[in-house]
Each structure stands twice: as C-alpha cells, then as structure tokens.
C-alpha cells in the first residue's frame, strides 16, 4: 500500500430514500490505525454512512474503498455475493442492540463465522474463542447463552465475535446507547483497549467525552453532510461552524446535567 492509498476511502457517497436525501456527496478518508468518531444529531445520516461502508445499506451513488479495493462493486448477483462476503470478513461491525445469536452459546457465537468461513477445526475454534473472550474479559461466561448475560456483557461478546474474524477495520454504531449507564464503562474500556492496539475504528457515538478521549478525529454530520471535522481538541473546543456549536451546546449541557 502506497502513502497515497487511504485505508478507507469514501468518495462522493450519496444515498436517498425516495425523495429524502440522507447522504449528500460525502467524501471521507481514514488511515490505517486511525480512530474516527462520527457525531451528529439524530437522523443526520451517521448510521447510514457507517452501514454503507460494508454495503449493508448500499449507496445510491459513490464508492467505498478498503485498501484500494472497492467494497460496493456493481456485479451480477452471484459474483457480488462472493465479493461482498469476502470484503465483509475484513470489516467487523458492532450494533447498538448487540444482535448476538440467541440460539448459540457465547463460545458458538464467537466461533461460528471462523469455523464456517475459515474452516477452523473445533480445537482451533475453541482456542480462538478463549483468546477473544479473554480479551474482552468474558472468559467465565463462555458456555452461557446470550439471554443469561447483562447488556454490557452481551456487547463485549459481540465485539469478540467481530474480532474473531481478525478484521482490518471495526465499525461501531452506538455500541453503548442501549446500555444502562453503569454498564457503559466496561464496553468503553474494551474499545479503548482496541484503540491502544491500533485497530482502525469508525465509531458512531453520542458520548462526547469518549470521543474526545479515544478518537484521533471527530466528524460532525448534520443533514447528510459533513459539517466539520478535525481533532477532538479543535472540534470540541473551537468549532468553527454554527451548527456544530449548537449541537455541542445541547450535548455538552446534557452531559453536564447527567453527570451531576
């Protein structure tokens, strides 16, 4: 990979639901090891953009490239399926509502995809599950079912499940929004640990303090466009755009309120 090829490259991303334009010509690059937060009001298109990166919500036009390879290729159905399944193995995703597989144990949640897609033996898969679950502090619950876990534990297992595929990039869509306040920290700690290991991460979040402490860059979206971006110190302390200021005023006030 040359200096010029960005790790993730989003070019002219545009997405419309009927007449509603949700993403309006978004251009964004992320370099390897970078940790990017996407913030913005509800409905601004954060999830849509994140989900366009692994083509879960396909763009109306524009391109997404991972290490120079186009993710959202237009191909005949079978070829597209083969291509996208291959690409998605490199892109981990963590959802707001965890989406753990309720019929599988924690161990099986983690090992299913590596076994199916990488042909791991049972022994190899077990070892992988043990490693990944140790990494997120969930070793003790390896043979539990998701319904027997707390929200924070579920999310940590979901992160381990994604990491078990050894992705190059991790996408987080409000990973802590569905959690009780006292469970947020355990998930944030896992994400911080990943940051220290230089995992490339794109994190949609409502937690401004987390974004400020963990991320290299903050992207503020509103109405389907990137209004402002920069290092957290700049975006949070000296925003230049009026819309950013308004948003931060509300959110930082809320934050101040809730942490009293």
């Amino acid at each position: 990979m040359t200096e010029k090829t960005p790790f993730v490259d989003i070019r002219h991303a545009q997405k419309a639901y009927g007449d509603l334009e949700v993403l309006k010509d978004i251009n964004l690059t992320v370099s390897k090891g970078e940790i990017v937060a996407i913030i913005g009001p509800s409905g601004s298109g954060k999830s849509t953009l994140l989900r366009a990166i692994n083509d879960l919500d396909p763009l109306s036009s524009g391109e997404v490239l991972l290490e120079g390879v186009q993710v959202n290729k237009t191909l005949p159905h079978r070829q597209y399926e083969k291509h996208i399944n291959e690409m998605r193995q490199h892109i981990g995703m963590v959802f707001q509502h965890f989406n753990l597989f309720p019929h599988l144990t924690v161990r099986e949640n983690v090992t299913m995809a590596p076994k199916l897609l990488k042909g791991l033996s049972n022994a190899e898969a077990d070892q992988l599950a043990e490693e990944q679950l140790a990494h997120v502090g969930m070793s003790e619950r390896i043979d539990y079912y998701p319904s027997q876990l707390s929200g924070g534990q579920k999310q940590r297992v979901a992160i381990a499940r994604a990491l078990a595929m050894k992705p190059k990039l991790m996408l987080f869509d409000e990973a802590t929004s569905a959690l009780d306040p006292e469970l947020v920290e355990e998930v944030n700690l896992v994400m911080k640990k990943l940051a220290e290991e230089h995992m490339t991460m794109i994190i949609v979040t409502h937690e401004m303090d987390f974004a400020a402490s963990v991320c290299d860059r903050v992207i503020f979206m509103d109405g389907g466009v990137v209004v402002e971006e920069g290092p957290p110190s700049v975006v949070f302390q000296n925003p230049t755009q009026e819309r950013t200021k308004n948003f931060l005023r509300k959110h930082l006030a809320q934050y101040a309120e809730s942490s009293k």
Partner: protein
Amino acid sequence: MDIDLILRVYPHFLKAALVTVELSVLTVLLGLVCGAAAAAARLSRFAILRFIGAAYVSLMRGIPALIFLFLLYFGGPQIGIQLTAFQAGVIGLGINIGAYMTETMRGAIISVDHGQAEAARTLGLSQFQSFRKVILPQAMRLMIRPLGVNINAQIKGTALVAAISVVELTYTAQRYIGSTYKPFEMFFLAGILYLIIITVTGKMISFLDRRVRLP
C-alpha cells in the same frame, strides 16, 4: 347410553382410529413438505417463485378442502388421475394443509429479528449460510407451536375423507349407526378417540417445544 354396545364395537373403532392416525401422519408429512417448499418459494428473490407460492396458498385457502378432495377423487379420472380413496385423501388433504403450514413457516421466518441476518451477513456469511445457521434455527423454534395448531386442525380434518368412503373413524361411526341405530353412542365413541389422538399429539408438540426452548 348403551355401554354394552360400546364395549362390543370399540375394537372396530380402534382399528379405524389407527387409520385416522395413519392419515394424520401422512397428510401432516406431505403438508410439511409442501409448506416448506412453498414458504421457500414465497421468500425467494425470484418473482415467479414468489407468485407460484402465493397462488398455491390463496388457492388452497380459498376453496373448501372437501371440494378439493372431491375434485381429485371424482374429477381426477376425467383428466387421467386415477387414485384410490386413501391416496386421494392423503394427497388432497396434505396439499391443502400445506398451504396453511406455508404461512406458519413463513411467518416464523420473517419474525426472526432482522438484526440477526444483518449480524450474520456482516461477519461474511452468505445468504444461505445465514439462513441455515442463524435464521432457520430460531424460526424452527418459533414455528413448533403454530404448526401444532395446523396439525390439530388436520387431525380433525381427516374426517373429511369419510365422504369418499375411506374407512377411518368418522366413516366407521356412520357405518355402525346404519346397523345399530345408536348415533349417540357411535359418535360419542368416535369423539373420545379423536380426543385421545389430539391430546397425545398436543402433548408431544409441547414436549418438543420445551426440549428445544432456549434458556
């Protein structure tokens, strides 16, 4: 009530009840096969298959099972389909209940949270792998009880084949009324036997449901 009469005829009713059980098992099996195929068709990405699946369901739910049975058994020879009454009963009722089972299965499949498929696809699983490993195991658990309702209806529905003279429980009751003139006893006995078959089946379904229930 003529208890002596009941005690005298009940071995014949037991034999007939076995035919009812046999009919139930075969029609339910055929119904499950038709239901699975049509549910797959209805969920296919090919419009033509979706249309065929939907047409089958509305056709079978739109005409009385008895008419379909008559069509097959009495009308069949006219278009070159020659079936015994038992065969016509199994095929006719099996295809008919299959339409209801289609909707049961489809309903269970689409009620699995969409996030499940998303999580599976995000990991890199193919559509088929995600269906096999993630959607289907959850849908199967969801469909056991509603399929139990279909099966319950089908067991009672086997009585229709009495109309084409298959010697099962209802037909047997009618035949004994002809010789004994005791309709109360005969239908009472048949009713009890249906009740037993249905209760046992219901227990088996509950057992299966509990066996596969998730913690």
